[in-house]
């Protein structure tokens, strides 16, 4: 019983971390059909910004979110206005140009970080970094709880914005059908800029949260990016709730495999990619596709 509780609690915590990494990627893909390959670089920059605020101004990593999120939102909008909007549109599939461009941006960010912070491994040690609390009899790291809380809050804010505000409705309209949204008077270019800013802000936020758990270098984020791709495919590419659900499914799969099977944990990445392939073949619309299927069956 205790082992089952361990698995569930740890899966929720890992899901919080994974979802935070994937929200930004999903928002940008949903609105613009762009796979933001610079996502890992932006997370890395978020971690370094938090590190700088912590070391130079003694700002707690979780408090630094109030600086990081607006800063990265502005950076994202600027990146969109100066570079991304110039990309040729290619309908519903990501263009090769966008992949190459954003990969280039990632390399620039990496090299910028080498210049600004050198290649040394950096980390943030706070008074609570090594502390843990007992949750349902499971020892849980305080930073992991904080990351989970921020992830849940991000989900609520995103859901609220997307479903209760005009901006959210416009974002959803562009996500569903860009041309129809344009015909309805939605300024799709402005919405794309905002979406890119939101996606970048979430990547920065993810970097801040990751910096409370991990040490980092300018190469930071690469392994997280691959996991985030799996999650957004599983979550249905455009749905924020789907991303959270996808993150939980992946985390649960990893924890159950580790606890109840003899499969080596070094195969965790292989497990993620197997899940990605199976999802693409069996359920190309991800988890939201499953609920739609169930809905159709109930009606018919």
């Amino acid at each position, binding site marked *: 019983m205790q082992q089952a509780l361990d698995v569930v609690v740890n899966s929720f915590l890992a899901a919080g*971390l994974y979802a935070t990494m994937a929200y930004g990627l999903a928002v940008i893909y949903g609105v613009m059909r762009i796979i933001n390959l610079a996502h890992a670089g932006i997370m890395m920059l978020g971690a370094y910004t938090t590190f700088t605020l912590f070391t130079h101004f003694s700002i707690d990593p979780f408090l630094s979110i109030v600086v990081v999120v607006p800063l990265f939102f502005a950076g994202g909008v600027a990146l969109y206005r100066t570079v991304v909007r110039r990309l040729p549109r290619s309908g519903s599939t990501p263009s090769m140009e966008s992949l190459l461009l954003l990969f280039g941006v990632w390399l620039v960010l990496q090299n910028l970080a080498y210049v600004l912070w050198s290649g040394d491994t950096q980390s943030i*040690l706070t008074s609570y970094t*090594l502390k843990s609390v007992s949750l349902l009899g499971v020892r849980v790291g305080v930073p992991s709880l904080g990351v989970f809380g921020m992830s849940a809050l991000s989900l609520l804010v995103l859901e609220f914005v997307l479903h209760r505000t005009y901006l959210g409705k416009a974002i959803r309209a562009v996500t569903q059908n860009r041309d129809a949204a344009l015909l309805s008077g939605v300024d799709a270019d402005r919405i794309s800029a905002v979406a890119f800013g939101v996606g970048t802000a979430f990547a920065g936020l993810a970097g801040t949260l990751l910096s409370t758990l*991990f040490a980092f270098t300018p190469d930071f984020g690469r392994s997280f990016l691959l996991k985030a791709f799996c999650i957004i495919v599983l979550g249905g590419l455009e749905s924020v709730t789907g991303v959270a659900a996808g993150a939980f499914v992946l985390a649960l799969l990893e924890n159950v495999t580790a606890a109840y099977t003899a499969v*080596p944990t*070094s195969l965790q990445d292989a497990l993620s990619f197997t899940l990605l392939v199976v999802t693409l073949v069996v359920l190309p619309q991800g988890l939201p596709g499953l609920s739609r299927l169930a809905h159709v069956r109930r009606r018919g």
Partner: protein
Amino acid sequence: MTGIRSNRSFALSVLSLALAFSGPAAAQEAAIRIGAVLPVTGKESKIGSAYKQATEFAVKEVNDAGGLDVGGKRMKIDLALLDDTSDASRSEQLVEQLMAQQKVHAVIGGYGSQLVQAQSVVPDRYGIPYVSGGAGATSIYGRSKWVFGVLSPVENLASTQMDFLSDLVAQGKLKKPLKIALLIENTEHGKDFQKGVKDYAKAHPEFSVVLDESFELYAPDFKPLLGRVAAAKADLFMCDAHLEDFISMQRTYTQMGLYHQMVTYGARGADEAGRKALGAATDYIFASGWWSDLLPYPQVKAFTAKWKAAAGSAPQWYHATAYETVRVLFAAIQKAGSLNPEAIRAALAGIELKDSILPGGVLKFTKTGQAVLPFVVTQNKPDGKVDIVWPKEARTGEAVAPMPKG
């Protein structure tokens, strides 16, 4: 017409005289061309830059003393040091460029097993001696007679730690039998460490490996893996990890409240970055290293003093191994008495650098070209203190075993 001929004759005579006089002078001033390819930028830049600093320091020291004695002639060193940006394919290209175009007499290799692995295929093509100071993976050596390496095999790092643990058993500090939970990063480095521990445990029945798992570099969540470690109920926790993974894993280990009588992360533990990231959570962790400035040899003290004077800070293990790489190459060139590549290679193969600052005090290469030297085992103590606890003759403090709980 005659005037033109006589002018030509005069010019030719002057040219001949100039050549006649300039020949020996040029030969006297000719330098020894040494190439080096290091990751000065990119992901390995931290230690790569340190290797560059120590290499230049060693070359300057020789040049300031008038150069090397090569067959009775004093010759200065002309160092061409290139940055491979931590890119393996670029690293290989640059070594090739140094050997094919710049016609260097020998090459000093890079840092990091992956980069050195890429570089190590080139020397055989050109027949130029190559000495690396930054790769301990055994798979690099023994394939080419031109490739030499100063770092001892990682397998030996593991067996040295096992010798240290055996000694703790002999002292009665640890009670046998001892069960080991063994985790390794999925790299050549990790596999060598795994082999070292497992081979030792096979030969010494007081040790048994009850958990043997690997993990990918920069894993995002160590909880599932450490859950298995907890379930294994081992006495000793032995892991081989990069600095980033060491920090993440030890944080999770501490948060999960795990305890083992002894804990090691291979070469990690005493690093300043690790102690800064983990604070008291690194206390009593033991680690093995290729060098320590605490080694009680007079040559180590002399090196430490001159390094501090020049660089303004205490030398780290990578400064020492980079410095010794240059020294052993220069000693071989002097021993060869010529710049003939085969003569330098033969000298390297048979060299014994008897005043080495590395553990054991004598640097020499085995048949595979890799040096096999003892490792030092250090243990972190509270308040940032570190002691050498193995080998016995180099001890600066007693090992604390088992580790105190909490």
